[in-house]
């Protein structure tokens, strides 16, 4: 991770105003520059050690994520596959204690991998009265609270972009979408278009 913040540009920086204009139907806020690490591990002891290093247990159930506060602050661990996880941490981590190194140390000699993928995707927070409507226009996953409770995390398509979708608060309708950086502008354009009807007050 780098300490420099002055010379960074996030994938959706140029879209901030347009996305803000989708309120109140949909609130869309890019949460840029999060620390993201792809972790591959399957050995239970290794997975436990990785969780211990973060102070957050890795998700045991498929299609879920865990969240907690530890030595690296507020950290989420997303289940992406049987041996694949994405660790998402704050952007302002103390560079003297890189989370990547901590994870690598925790992995030890066990089979696995730790890869910095921080800029591979950007993160978009979605909420608002029509958030489920908008998502339903492009996402085939059932996002009803009974089917996708808080803590759900799936890899799916939103329109034509591959995304990781997190259910942050099922009752309140708060979601996080992680999208590949090169697809971020497409997704922003799609979200803006999907809101047209809801902004016009037609339902």
């Amino acid at each position: 991770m780098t300490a420099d913040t002055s010379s960074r540009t996030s994938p959706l920086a140029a879209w901030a105003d347009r996305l803000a204009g989708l309120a109140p139907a949909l609130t869309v806020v890019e949460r840029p520059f999060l620390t993201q690490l792809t972790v591959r591990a399957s050995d239970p002891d290794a997975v436990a050690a990785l969780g211990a290093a973060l102070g957050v247990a890795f998700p045991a159930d498929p299609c879920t994520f865990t969240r907690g506060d530890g030595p690296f602050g507020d950290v989420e661990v997303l289940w992406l596959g049987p041996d694949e996880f994405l660790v998402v941490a704050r952007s302002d981590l103390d560079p003297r204690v890189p989370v990547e190194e901590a994870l690598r140390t925790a992995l030890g000699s066990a089979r696995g991998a730790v890869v910095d993928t921080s800029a591979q995707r950007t993160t978009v927070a979605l909420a608002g009265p029509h958030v489920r409507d908008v998502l339903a226009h492009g996402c085939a996953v059932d996002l009803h609270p009974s089917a996708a409770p808080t803590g759900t995390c799936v890899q799916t398509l939103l329109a034509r972009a591959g995304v990781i979708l997190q259910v942050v608060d099922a009752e309140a309708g708060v979601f996080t979408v992680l999208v590949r950086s090169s697809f971020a502008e497409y997704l922003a354009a799609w979200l803006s278009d999907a809101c047209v009807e809801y902004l016009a007050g037609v339902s």
Partner: protein
Amino acid sequence: MSATFRLPTGGLIDRDTALRFTFNGRSMTGHPGDTLASALLANGVHAIGTSVKYGRPRGIVAAGSEDPTSLVQIEQPFPEPMLTATTVELYDGLVAHGLPGQGRLASEPDPARYDAKHVHCDVLVVGAGPAGLVAALTAARGGARVVVVDEQNQAGGALLGTREYLGERLSQDWAADIAAELRNTPGVLVLDRTTAFGVYQDGFVLALQRRTDHLGFDAPADAARQRVWRIRAKQTVLATGAHERPVVFADNDRPGIMLAGSARTFLHRYGVLPGTRAVVFTTDDSAYRAAIDLARAGMDVAMVVDARPAAPSVLAARCSARGIQVRAGHVVTGTEGGARITDAHVAPLPGTEGNPETVDCDTLLVSGGWNPVVHLFSQARGTLRYDSELGAFVPGEELPTVRVAGSATGALDLTSCLRQGRDAGHAAALAAGFAPVGEVELPVSGARTDERPGMVLWRVPGELREGAPDTRFVDLQRDATVSDVLRATGAGLRSLEHVKRYTTIGTAHDQGKTSGMITAGLVAEELGVELSEQRPTTFRPPYTPVSFAALAGRDRGELHDPARVTALHPWHVARGALFEDVGQWKRPWYFPRTGEDMDTAVLRECRAAREGVALMDGSTLGKIDLQGRDAGRFLDMLYTNKMSALKVGRIRYGVMCGVDGMVIDDGTVIRLAEDRFLVTTTTGNAAMVLDWMEEWLQTEWPHLDVYATSVTEHWATIPLVGPRSRDVLAELAPDLDVGNEAFGFMTWRDTVLDVGAGVPARVCRISFSGELAYEVNVTAWHGLAVWEALMAEGEKYGITPYGTETMHVLRAEKGYPIVGQETDATVTPQDLGMSWAVSKKKADFIGKRSHTRAENNRPDRKQLVGLLPVDPEIQLPEGAQVVGTDRLPDPPVPMLGHITSSYRSAALDRTFALAVVRSGHERVGETLYVPVGDDLVPVTVTESVLYDREGARRDG
């Protein structure tokens, strides 16, 4: 003009509001609640258009989407062809005309929005008639998530076309009550004006909702006009009802001839009489109700012609009481008329007393029984069974997740429909994991409790007069007659699928909803086989026509296909770059200055790279991180050369082959640590290579300790190229010794760039141009700042941004192939002159065995060479053929190969090309010829490396 056939009261229309519309140039009025068809009938208009083949006048046969004839073209508000007047809800200002079987698409783009929406439910109910409503209510009261879709603009189904009572309530009102309760139940979604048109696997159902069509000019531009609902249901209840079946007789296509049940619907739902004097021709009881209701409403019903030997006594008596004659054992043998029927010919069937007679009438109502709407059940892979009493195919089995209720099962009476609806709703909810609370109380119906199947009659018996044209129409839209069916069977066709294709019956907009069953019956009769042994034609989506605009939805224009962009994209746009599509990526093609054409711009960019310093956006290159103890071993198998021997800190170029030994990709391999590599792929193959790796790791070599992770978009990659690149980098990377001794070719270094507060970077000495070059990698976040810093730092050297075209020229001058341009899945590394990149020592790698095949070692394989046109100004077209003679022999002309790349070179001061040519490596120095237009252009074969063969430029 007044609506002379509109009754003063009755129907679900708003008589207080007049809607003006124009049909076939004539201005008329109708009311909210009307369809175009009912409004036309109210104005006495039956003739809609003409038939596709014979040009005969055609009218309105049915009241719903099964109608085979009332095709109209909408002109206003927006041109739309091939809609049935029976499904167009009337709105003010509608302009339409009838069609002769074909319509006209708008020449301008459709301005309306169309979209799609996913919805999930426990129980999907298709059809909001009596069975569907009860099914939905039963499931909803149990707490299931329920979606109800219904084609009509209000719930009720067949009840909308009757005036019966359910308990104390008029059945239409009862339906409205249930629909209201459903709408008010949390977790229930009721979609009207929505047609389920396709049933697929795993409970996936597509439905089209017509959201604003009925608003005409008042449709809000912001709202999607039509929406495709993508429904995923755990359980589905099909309560899709039944279509009335006609009987075929001579001249059965005249306007004014209509299905009896549909006439009843026009009466009760729209308050419209279909004419002044009617004859009713039936084989079952249901048409008697139409006759009685119409007579009660004031229509002169002259006669009920019942093909059965005995008329039903109670109904016949009620007819007689109203002065309606009843002729049992009789049939309609033909009609007279032009744009409207004027007479019906009635005759006794053999064995019945009586004389032929002609009855004058302007309306002939027909009923030949009812066909359950089994389309969706059949799409769900449910098998159908022929019910000989009904003369129709009915659901022949139970499916685990699809249930059928109501008249879609063949049930004829309302009480059975209601009970089946409740049972299906109960079973569906239970199967979906819900226990319904109590039983929904079913209203008592006095109607149709004594309903019995009628007589099955496909066509009125009798022979065609010799030489006379056949007017016994089976498919009115396709102008297909009984003779056409007999011609098909006469030609030896036995399968209904074949007969369908031979006659085109059932291939029109209505997909044979009123003709398919009759065709099956006629074929079985003619072949003397049992219908139970005939397989009906396959029902395929869509159940009713769906426009391409609706299917496209929002995937149009910029949303049609995602344009992937790099972190540097905004800079390229601001600089006026032209872009090239590479896969989904937008890559800068070249950066023209004012007044420059492409050739000029590319020559300038090339010159800058060879003589000064230039840079490009290489971020789209695929990048894959490989970690694990066996990463080196794995790479040794993937690439043709040895990667495990690569030292940490060094880089190696590699070629990847398929199992057939053909080149599938190339790129560089960077060793980051003992157990860690970074692999680059071509832009277009990044996903393929990752999949390729995963396939081998997951299926063949799961024991290998290797993990592959895409990091393509984590990095912004900027090749900094040219003799002055070292100077530019030195100033921006103060901690890095950029000298050739300390930082040699094909090595990499990590450093911190003097940008902002310091940007960590990985710099690789890689060159795709042959020039001194540094590939600068930073996180995508920092890409723009670093690019701008390089531009600023290089200004004094004239630093020049370049695009993919210049990259192609530079690498071609060096003979570097591009996978997918020089290669086409038939090219080996040896063909490319890259034997040096194929290990002879490794025990194995993917493709090794194939490289030993005789075919892959033939001396006359096509091999990569350079071609220099003798005239240095001629630029050969890419794809042009290469031949060996200066004059073309008679065809077939022996082709030696083709041009793969062709450019104008600043460094060579001439044009040049790369080509794959038979025995190319042996032909160096020969003159070959390239046909261009009428000329044969002489070219000299050279080695593929045309510039700086000794590689003197790469270290600066």
